[in-house]
């Protein structure tokens, strides 16, 4: 039964993926992409990875989807006519097809040739978990055992926003924004926002024991912000630049400070003192949640401060 379900999921993944790439117009492709993301969230649950499922739904499908749709909104003006890319006569098509088929073949070969052995790392994580300061193994890996990866990953996120800031700085005129002046929506928002904030806090709190954590919480926070933004409430860099920047960097800075503080004791980087591990991780997560929320939100809002419509060169 479950195998059937899995196979169904598998085929829907492949179908949605193909539709994402081939559906015309592009808008439908993006919609299929978001659906693919939601499907993936289900798959992650089947793979016993609820953390990823949450993240996939919130970030992979949610934020990425919103970003794509937002971009499409600009494309719309251009009457972007895209013809079907699948032209059997073009060499490009055949090269792409052959490459992708050979990739599939090779990967399949690799998969079949590799025996399924339990990884020793999972065991080590289980053994070290009591000393990690948290109960949830994934949070332990992310913020303790492999916290260095996470630190750099936040760096990647900051770089993305930095480039956004750079490009947005080119011109400071404000673009007219899509607004949702619907009163009903406003009312819904009034209910939804506190609810989402609560969800976010819960996810953060839960992270130490069960699925959830800074990323998922941050994503929900960002989603809240995006909703507010769409309804006309501007929480952007322009409102208070310094404060906003500080908010964006808060998570990264706190993380960095905690990481460096180990050096004072002569410990390796990112070492948490034994008793403080849990608290430090919580502090980091708190700061990260806020910053990730702000960063993801800004990823969405920043491009809205680009050249005004009428000044765009054709």
């Amino acid at each position, binding site marked *: 039964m479950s195998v059937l379900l899995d196979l169904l999921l598998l085929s829907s993944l492949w179908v949605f993926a193909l539709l994402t*790439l081939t559906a015309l117009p592009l808008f439908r492709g993006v919609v299929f992409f978001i659906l693919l993301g939601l499907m993936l969230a289900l798959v992650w649950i089947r793979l016993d*990875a609820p953390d*990823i499922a949450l*993240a996939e739904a919130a970030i992979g499908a949610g934020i990425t989807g919103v970003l794509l749709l937002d971009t499409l909104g600009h494309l719309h003006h251009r009457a972007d006519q895209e013809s079907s890319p699948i032209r059997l006569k073009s060499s490009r098509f055949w090269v*792409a097809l052959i490459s992708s088929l050979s990739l599939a073949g090779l990967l399949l070969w690799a998969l079949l040739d590799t025996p399924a*052995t339990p990884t020793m790392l999972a065991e080590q994580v289980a053994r070290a978990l009591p000393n990690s300061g948290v109960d949830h193994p994934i949070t332990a*890996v992310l913020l303790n055992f492999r916290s260095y990866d996470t630190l750099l990953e936040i760096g990647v*996120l900051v770089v993305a926003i930095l480039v956004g800031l750079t490009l947005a700085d080119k011109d400071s005129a404000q673009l007219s924004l899509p607004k949702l002046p619907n009163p009903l929506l406003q009312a819904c928002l009034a209910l939804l926002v506190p609810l989402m904030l609560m969800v976010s806090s819960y996810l953060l709190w839960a992270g130490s024991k069960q699925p959830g954590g800074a990323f998922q919480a941050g994503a929900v926070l960002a989603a809240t912000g995006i909703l507010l933004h769409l309804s006309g409430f501007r929480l952007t860099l322009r409102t208070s630049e310094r404060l906003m920047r500080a908010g964006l960097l808060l998570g990264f800075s706190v993380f960095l400070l905690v990481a460096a503080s180990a050096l004072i004791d002569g410990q390796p980087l990112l070492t948490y003192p034994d008793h403080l591990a849990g608290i430090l991780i919580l502090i980091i997560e708190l700061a990260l949640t806020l910053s990730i929320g702000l960063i993801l939100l800004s990823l969405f809002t920043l491009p809205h401060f680009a050249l005004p419509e009428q000044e765009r*060169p054709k």
Partner: protein
Amino acid sequence: MSSSAVIFSLAGIGLCAIGLFGFMLHTHLIRKLLAFNIMGSGVFLLLVGMAQRSGHTDPVPQALVLTGIVVAVSATALALYLIRRWLQLSGSTELPEDDRR
């Protein structure tokens, strides 16, 4: 042996292949970006799926995927910034064919 893990490893392989296909086929930048994301999801599935085929949950690859998702969204956002800007300046969603001078 976990059949889900094997099946979704296969699914991951399929997504990788489809993603690569799209990435190489399309010239439309946003389609390319979608293809990249599909391929990324495929890699993530393969990473967790392959490691969990013995039936045990492995938190390490799961954590890696979480990291990977955040990196992917950062890359996507950055790409979208550049593409939008390019769109504003040139009005095109494709790159000029050949840039050799």
